[in-house]
Each structure stands twice: as structure tokens, then as C-alpha cells.
């Protein structure tokens, strides 16, 4: 089963003719993803290694049957690209682009939710269901198919934890990076709820970091709504307040959003929090052996 992306995914890449979009779009196809279209206004009729380019997302949907969009356009154009994908009737949008302004995201968040569209990102590595489909920039080589759902606000930290799981002989149903920005399309709670409903997923790892209160909301959700065990990791215990730690959303504001507060909220509800990425992977392995 897996979540978000699978064998039925028919992907349109917005920005496929750019160097990054092309590189990752083709990698996604190599992994087995059905990359059915690219969109670049003015380049309709061309192709990228056999993938047809259309001028609009609407055309990619009507002519190539796209049902999922990956946004790979520069930040000033990303909001427009997301609105266009929603309007074209795409059900899932994954926005890789970093640097989308917060005010844009406030409007887009309200817009997609009102229309029942799933948005992942922006500023995220995408989603990978090993052996089925890869949409984004996650290095598929280091993951294998299995039962662990993995959801994270970070890229490389997720790869690190996934890699440690692989070395312990464990695999993943789906790996999702929800993005490092203060406002992203889907929250931890949204993804946990998808994993809870997914038949392939048996355990979930949630990788959080400083800033905001999505981990705290997730803790309450896990306690109230989830039957599957969740193990967490939080980055940024030693981050100073008021400083943006790489991700636009990784910032402690006043006394809110600390790693300790998140860890406390999770542990208060019986959710195990690993001290290091290695320990986090070991906690999952112990869960499975138990």
C-alpha cells in the first residue's frame, strides 16, 4: 500500500526543463515512478528524454493523465505553480522549492485544505515509497521496502535515520519529508493519520525539530488516535533562542518551540524519544523484536 506515492502515481514535474528538475525527475523515473509529463510555459511540444512537456498543468492532466504534481520551480514562481496544480485537478502536490514567503503559504494552506488537495512541502525532500515510487530528491538507494513509516521536517537527518534502519535490517513503507518551513501543506498529524490507515505501515518514526508546536499536536494525536507505535527524535536541544537554524521554521520564539518542550510532551504520553539518530533506529528495532 504505502502512502502518498505508489505504483498508481502519474507524475507531472513543474519545472522539468530546469537543471534540478530534470536531474531529479529522471532519477524519479529510474526508480520506477511513472513520470508522465513536464510543464514549462512556452516549451509545450518538446520533451525531456521522452517525457512530453506541456505549457500548462491542465494539459498535462487532460493529455497525460497526471494525478500528482512535483513543483521544482524557483521560489518567486512556486506559489503560482501550486495554485495552477490545484486548479488543474491534481490530487497530490509535492513542492520541493525552498524560500516560498510565509504570507503566500498562509493563503495556499487555506486554499488547498478547502479543496481537499494534499500538499507536501514546500522546502521538503519529497516522498519515497521504496520499490514503488519516488517523488522528490530522497536518495532511494539507501532505503528498502518494509513496514516502518518515516515522517520528518528534515532531509539528510531523515536519510541518516533511514540508513540506520536499513543497517538494522528494517525497511520503510513510505518516507516523507514534510518540509522545514514555518507553514507547510501537511503537518505531522496529517501524515500520522495516513500512516495509521495504511496497511503496509506497522510502526512510525517521527523526526521533529525546534520551532512551532506541531510535535506537541502530534503527541496528543498519537495518544488519542493511533494504534500503531511511534518513536520520535527531536533535533535542536542546544539551539539558542531567536536564531534560525538552517530551516526557516527551525527557530525558538521567546520560550516557545524548544526541543525539550517537545520531548516532554511526547514522553508524557508514553512516546519514546531517541537521544541520537542511532538510538532512535535501535528503539524501532527493539519495538519490532518485542
Amino acid at each position, binding site marked *: 500500500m504505502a502512502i502518498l506515492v505508489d505504483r498508481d502515481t502519474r507524475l507531472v514535474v513543474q519545472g522539468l526543463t530546469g537543471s534540478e528538475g530534470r536531474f531529479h525527475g529522471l532519477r524519479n523515473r529510474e526508480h520506477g515512478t511513472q513520470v508522465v509529463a513536464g510543464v514549462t510555459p512556452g516549451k509545450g511540444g518538446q520533451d525531456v528524454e521522452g517525457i512530453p512537456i506541456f505549457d500548462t498543468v491542465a494539459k498535462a492532466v487532460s493529455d497525460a493523465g497526471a494525478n500528482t504534481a512535483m513543483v521544482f520551480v524557483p521560489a518567486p514562481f512556486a506559489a503560482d505553480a501550486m495554485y495552477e496544480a490545484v486548479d488543474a485537478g491534481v490530487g497530490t502536490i509535492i513542492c520541493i522549492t525552498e524560500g516560498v514567503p510565509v504570507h503566500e503559504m*498562509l493563503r495556499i494552506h487555506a486554499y488547498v485544505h478547502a479543496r481537499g488537495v494534499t500538499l507536501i512541502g514546500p522546502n521538503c525532500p519529497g516522498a519515497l515509497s521504496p520499490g514503488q515510487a519516488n517523488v522528490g530528491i530522497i*536518495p532511494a538507494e539507501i532505503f528498502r521496502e518494509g513496514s516502518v513509516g518515516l515522517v520528518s521536517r528534515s*532531509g*539528510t537527518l531523515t536519510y541518516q535515520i533511514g540508513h540506520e534502519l536499513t543497517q538494522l535490517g528494517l525497511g520503510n513503507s513510505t518516507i516523507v519529508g514534510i518540509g522545514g518551513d514555518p507553514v507547510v501543506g501537511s503537518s505531522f498529524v496529517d501524515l500520522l493519520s495516513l500512516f495509521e490507515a495504511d496497511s503496509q505501515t506497522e510502526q512510525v518514526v517521527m523526526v521533529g525539530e525546534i520551532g512551532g508546536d506541531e510535535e506537541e499536536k502530534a503527541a496528543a494525536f498519537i495518544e488519542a488516535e493511533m494504534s500503531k507505535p511511534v518513536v520520535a527524535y527531536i*533535533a535542536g536541544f*542546544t539551539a539558542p533562542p531567536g536564531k534560525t*537554524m538552517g530551516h*526557516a521554521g527551525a527557530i525558538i520564539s521567546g520560550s516557545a518551540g524548544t526541543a525539550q518542550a517537545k520531548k516532554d510532551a511526547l514522553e508524557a504520553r508514553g512516546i519514546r524519544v531517541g537521544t541520537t539518530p*542511532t538510538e532512535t533506529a535501535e528503539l524501532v528495532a527493539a519495538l519490532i523484536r518485542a
Partner: protein
Amino acid sequence: MDLHEFQGKELFRRFGIPVSEGRLATSAGEARAAAEELGGQVVVKAQVLVGGRGKAGGIKLADTPADASERAGEILGMDIRGHTVRKVWVERASDIAREYYLSIAFDRSAKQPLFMFTTQGGIDIEEVATSSPDALARLHVDPLEGYHPWHARRLVYQAGVEDPAEQKQIVAIIGKLYEAFVGCEAMLCEINPLVVTTDGEVRALDSKFTVDDNALFRHPEIAEMRDVDAAEPLEALAREKDVTYVKLDGDVGVLGNGAGLTMATVDVVTFVGGRPADFCDLGGGGDAQGVVDALEVITKDHQVRAIFFNIFGGITRCDEVARGILQALEQMTIELPIVVRLDGTNAEEGRRLLRDADGSNLHTEATMLDGARRAVELAAV
């Protein structure tokens, strides 16, 4: 990006929010001239990007131009919680009858803008929120619907403003503050205090203004307001070189690829008993120039005794990263011990390249924990 009071007030003025007339001064002489031009009693206010200026003695009244010059002389050069005062704002003094508080901020949890208004202004708003939450009127704005005047009316009536002339002025200011918030793509616009003068005029006496860094590309006039001198010097250098760097206060220089992994690295260095000197994110790749730029910033910090690279190779393979690090080290001389931990795609090949390289100060480790321990040991030598 945080703006100074005088910059925030300039933006308020542009959006039609009443502020007192004032001048910027960088010397006692300029402060004197400013006071002469303004006439009458003035306030001399330190311009620093940190709270608590008043308590620190950074805000003073002056009755005459000579007095203003003297007060400015005292305030300029003062250290307020680690920030040196380089500018003062000289403003015509106000006769204050009442002090209110008004702000609009990006409420991250609700994913909507949030207005807050109370007649108990002039003090710390978090204090009001905990001690008398009923006195604080809060109201979200739907980002798709935007602002409507009823928002302002509800805030004003809920907070208990009774004078009709005052109500009218505050309702107008609330609308203009929303325009400023959206027009400048701010994260926060705060007026504390919003004063009512003895003549019944409502005016913004202070400003706290934070603009979304990701939106600056379409607000060049605000981007220009960045005060480079106010930044930590190493962080300013990093910004110039486009290196993602946050200065910390230890002796182990930390570099990682990706924000999350780098934060985790800083944590692990602390957990094994070390003190990280910085957070430095190399981004996805490990190209030689990026490494050179990052190392130039890190080694300018004279507290640094050892350097710890924590790299996870994904699409950028570890052998490529190792070559990048070696090329970087050919371009610059670093005598400090360097610990490199490589994991992920082609990790063994990467570690072999580093081991074979001729560098007695270069150490390789296979795990994050071992790498952190080694770096902490070497920093202590």
C-alpha cells in the same frame, strides 16, 4: 529580519499610522542638531535589535539641545545585552495620558495572522496574557478573506475602549497596521505602547517590526534596511559568503550537510560533554568552494580548537564529498585537528580517500557518536 524602531516607524508613517516626529543621530552633535530642529522636550532612544532598552538606561528625556547632546553621548557606545548602541533616535516628547498595546503577528500554530489588543500597554505582553488574559483581546484573520473593519471594531469594544474619538482613531490604526503587515510581508508588527496623549491623539510610540526573510526579494526597499553592523561579526561574514552559520559559544567547530543533521550534530557534541562553537550547514552538496567558504568563517572564531565534519552522503556520494574536503584543504592551511565522519552512499570509499591523504591533523570516523567524541577529545588537548 528584525528592523530598528526608527525603521519600523518609517514604515508605519508610510502606511498612515501616526508617529512622533524624530531624527536619527549617530553622534552627540547630531543629536543636538536634531533636538534644535524638533524644538522643546525630546526623547533620546538607543536603536538596538534587542528588548529591555528602557531598563538598561537606553531611553532618556532631554529638555534642551545641550541636554540631548549629553544624553546621546551617554547612550551611544553603551552595551545593551551584548548589542553596542551605534545610533539613537531623537523624537519629540509626548504628553501621555494612557498606554495601550496593539500587534499583529503570524500565528504559526493556527496558520493565520493574529491581532492582539489591550488597554494595559507599555508592559510585557506575555505578562498581561498570563496575569489578566481577559484584558487581552485576540482575533485571527482568515488569510483568504483578509481584513474587514469589523475585526477592528470587535477588538476595540472587547478591550473596553470607551471614548468614541479614541475608538475611531484606533479602528483606523488597526486597519493600517494590517495593510503594513501584509504589504511588507511581516512576521510581526507591534506597537507597544500605543499612546493616547493628553490632547486625545492616538500615536505609535514604539515599533517592533519583523519581516519574512523569504519575502525580501520583492521588497528591496526593506531589504536595504538591514543593519550589517548589528549582526554578530562572524555571522555577517557568513552572510556575505552565503554560508548558513550560527555562532555558538564553544570550541568544537561543527559542519554538517542539511539543517536537521547539523542541529543533531550540535546536540550530539553537547551530549558527549563538548561545547559546539557553531552551527554550519553545508547544504545538500559538498563542493570544494562551499567547504572553503565555511572553513574560512569557522576558523575566524579563535575559540575553535577542533573541527567536526558530519556528512551523510545521499545523492551527493561520500567519495565526492571527501574529494571536496581534500580540495578545500589544499586551498587553505588549517592546523587545527579535523574529524570527518562520513556515512551513507560510498562511505567506505570516502573514508579511504581521507585516510590516504597526507594530513596528520585529519581523522576519520564511521559514526556520528564516535566522530563527536573524537572531536571533543581533540579540542580538549
